């Protein structure tokens, strides 16, 4: 039999719910960014709890780069239906017309146009003044410096030296027209907290997190899953079936899989506890150069 939440996880849960209610009450037009991964799954689950018996008073938005794994898209649509929440999908159509792809244009340009630009387009189109994101401070060094309420100017830029102090539980939620806030209710959660919570609360996650025989090719030490025929194989590459899973889910040619035997949540948690590697090791976009995440964030990336 499963245990109930530890007092520590209950505390994290309550803090996140508090943040969501503040945003719903203080902002004119908030939105929850839903990226289909494990953190998004927890975020959405918390939103359902925060406004129970009502539904979350804001829509979900998925910024689709068109390079997501097929299983992710299927999972996204099934979850929105199961929970009865509004799901909006935004794609940078201009990027699609220009044929922007992570393969021909590289990870940096692809991320910039299909994620960062697309997000700005969605903000402009729908007039959002706040957006929830699932980022956690333990993910990356510059994220550890992020506030729960991350202020963005009218051009969506983040200035690490001009962050608003966050004292007690008091948030300064004031924004002028055009300005916005990115809000991270999971700031204080760690990767281990997220998985433990998913296990104890029975939250569905994309099957890609569980180990299974999948076709992969190895590139520069990263295992890339061949999800469809859009991934051109390099000379001498033949997809091999290997038992792999994903620790983090991004765009499929940019996120490496790990070899694993973990097919259940307890096994995933056990593997995580024993791991000597960080979560984002498999993320190509973090490693373009030193400080690259910080630069992307200053330009409006989440």
């Amino acid at each position: 039999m499963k245990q109930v939440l530890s007092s520590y996880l209950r505390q994290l849960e309550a803090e996140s719910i508090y943040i969501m209610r503040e945003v719903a009450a203080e902002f004119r037009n908030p939105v929850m960014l839903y990226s289909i991964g494990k953190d998004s799954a927890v975020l959405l689950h918390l939103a359902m709890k925060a406004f129970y018996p009502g539904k979350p008073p804001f829509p979900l938005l998925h910024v689709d780069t068109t390079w997501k794994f097929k299983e992710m898209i299927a999972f996204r649509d099934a979850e929105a239906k199961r929970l009865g929440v509004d799901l909006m999908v935004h794609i940078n159509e201009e990027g699609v017309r220009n044929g922007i792809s992570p393969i021909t244009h590289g990870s940096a340009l692809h991320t910039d146009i299909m994620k960062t630009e697309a997000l700005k387009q969605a903000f402009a189109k729908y007039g959002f003044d706040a957006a929830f994101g699932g980022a956690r401070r333990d993910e990356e060094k510059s994220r550890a410096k992020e506030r729960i309420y991350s202020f963005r100017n009218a051009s969506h830029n983040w200035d690490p030296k001009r962050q608003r102090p966050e004292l007690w539980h008091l948030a300064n939620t004031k924004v002028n027209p055009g300005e916005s806030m990115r809000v991270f209710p999971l700031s204080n959660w760690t990767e281990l907290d997220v998985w433990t919570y998913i296990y104890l609360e029975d939250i569905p996650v994309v099957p890609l997190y569980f180990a299974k025989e999948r076709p992969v090719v190895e590139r520069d030490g990263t295992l890339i899953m061949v999800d469809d025929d859009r991934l051109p194989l390099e000379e001498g590459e033949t997809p091999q079936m290997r038992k792999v899973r994903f620790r983090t889910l991004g765009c499929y040619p940019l996120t490496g899989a790990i070899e694993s035997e973990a097919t259940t949540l307890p096994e995933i948690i056990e593997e995580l506890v024993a791991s000597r590697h960080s979560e984002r090791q498999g993320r190509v976009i973090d490693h373009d150069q030193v400080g690259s995440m910080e630069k992307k964030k200053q330009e409006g990336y989440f």
Partner: protein
Amino acid sequence: MARLSVVGDTNDSASDRLAARLVAEEDRGLLRFLTCGSVDDGKSTLIGRLLYDSQLVFEDQLKNVQKESKRPNSTMGAEIDLSLLVDGLQAEREQGITIDVAYRYFATPRRKFIVADTPGHVQYTRNMATGASNCDFGVLLIDARQGVLTQTRRHACILSLLGIKKVALAVNKMDLIDFDQERFQAIVDDFTAFAEPLGFESIEAIPVSALKGDNVTAPSAHMHWYHGPTLLGHLETVEVSRSRDKDPFRFPVQWVNRPHLDFRGVSGTVAGGRIAPGDEVVIHPSGKRVHVARIVTADGDLDVAQEGDAVTLTFAEEVDASRGDVITTPDSEPSVADQLASKIIWFDEEAMLPGRNYTIRCGTQSATATVSSLKYKLNVDNLDHVAGKTLEMNEVGLCNLSMTKPLVFDPYGDNPETGSFILIDRFTNATVAAGMVEFGLRRATNVKWQELSVDKSSRAGLKGQKPCVLWFTGLSGSGKSTIANALEKRLHALGRHTYMLDGDNIRHGLNKDLGFTDADRVENIRRVAEAARLFVDAGLIVMVSFISPFRSERRMARDLVGEGEFIEIYVDTPLEVCEARDPKGLYRKARAGLIKNFTGIDSSYERPESPELDLNTSELTPEVLAERVLEELRRRDVV
């Protein structure tokens, strides 16, 4: 731990092992602590050391840091620079300092930790206060070579102000003073003497070297004279009680939950005490009494909700409760007042100005607040009370605040959740101060508003006009008073009832006691705005001709009167033109250094962003411009 090994011996499936681990974890508490102290005393290195020695650094992160440690501007030579594990921003790496607070998470078999790595630089003291407001314990670092510095004292002071009861004094860089016991003791004595009035319950002094690892996680081989715990050992065992379960019940309403006609609840997080269905509660500020019917959560109704629980309450009786209300039990009422006394830490580069309006955010409540008086400033070097008119950035003072409506609160010492607030600048939206309530002011409840039987509209009706304020703003010599004079003559000829408030004239009487510092200018405008409000109440068309250089005060004046009753007229004359005219010879004196704080010369003028009228004086005469104002008044049906 015993339970863990028993389960581990008899079961080997991953879910059983996880179950055992979760049971074991439940026994571990959580400690939120911060590290603080002066610049370069090694805070980031210390946290890097804690993470590294607790084997919490991942291999790929370590590899990156090793690579960066070899960069030319690194101070570390061949050794690995542990501070790079935590200083995540480019500017921090370039300058080798910590700019912003970072939160790190780590755990040992005995405890979980959230550590706030806060900056030491004076310029970022606000970030240190931020970290402290979310912690229960403080590690104050001192560089053994430097001893107790101003910033050490300032940080100790802030820790104490924010209610942190226990601290560790980590005297760092012991390796650089040959692990000298006497020097260590001298620093400890120095600090203890200073900190005595701050009232810490315990100060654990530990000699360490973050760089070499002495007494951080393992006892040092170099300091046999030291018999106390290692820093980590102390962090694992120090007792900090955080529970406010037994405190009076406090529930600030965040959100009215009304998904359909059959459900109406109020959502929020219990900020103190506990509550059960059937309990009687009071809703403040209305004072209505009702009974709790249900405590609703997505996981089912609760029998009891206690401090920290995020829940939704429903009531047995119909009642109107909304965001900003605070629900309590009848046995312990909070303060409900529109004036309070509070300690304030000023954060903003622009000094605090008594009389200026700020937005106050206290729990889920918001209002407009002004600092009505600064009782004293705190000298953080010796804890003396110092007289002063303003608070500069990073200064701490005791202030009286008055709000536009009553707020519900407690003294900070009784409940930090309901006794803390922030002040927000209404133009830049910057968080300019953090406040800790001392007490509500009784005069707030003793001075009552006298209802008058003749009101503004009846007074104005008698005169057959719509009262309003015509607020002329612009540089000295721009032509404000000349235009206002011409306008008043025209209005008078039309049979309108007017009055003129002129900057120079008011300074002969009502504002005789004020000078030209920013603080006095704010007070100058506050008084004239109040006077203008009274004249509007009397039904008059009031012309105010004041330089009024700051947007904040013009906004305050606007807020004092009704919608559409404030007409801001910007007399837009370039500085060169005003200076060439120099009707009173003031620019000449200012340029000669004979007048200080002169607008346009050594004091700033903030031009209106969207005035109702913008008068360009370079091409048109005052009479033509006055006529233009009159047209605007006709358009607005004022005359």
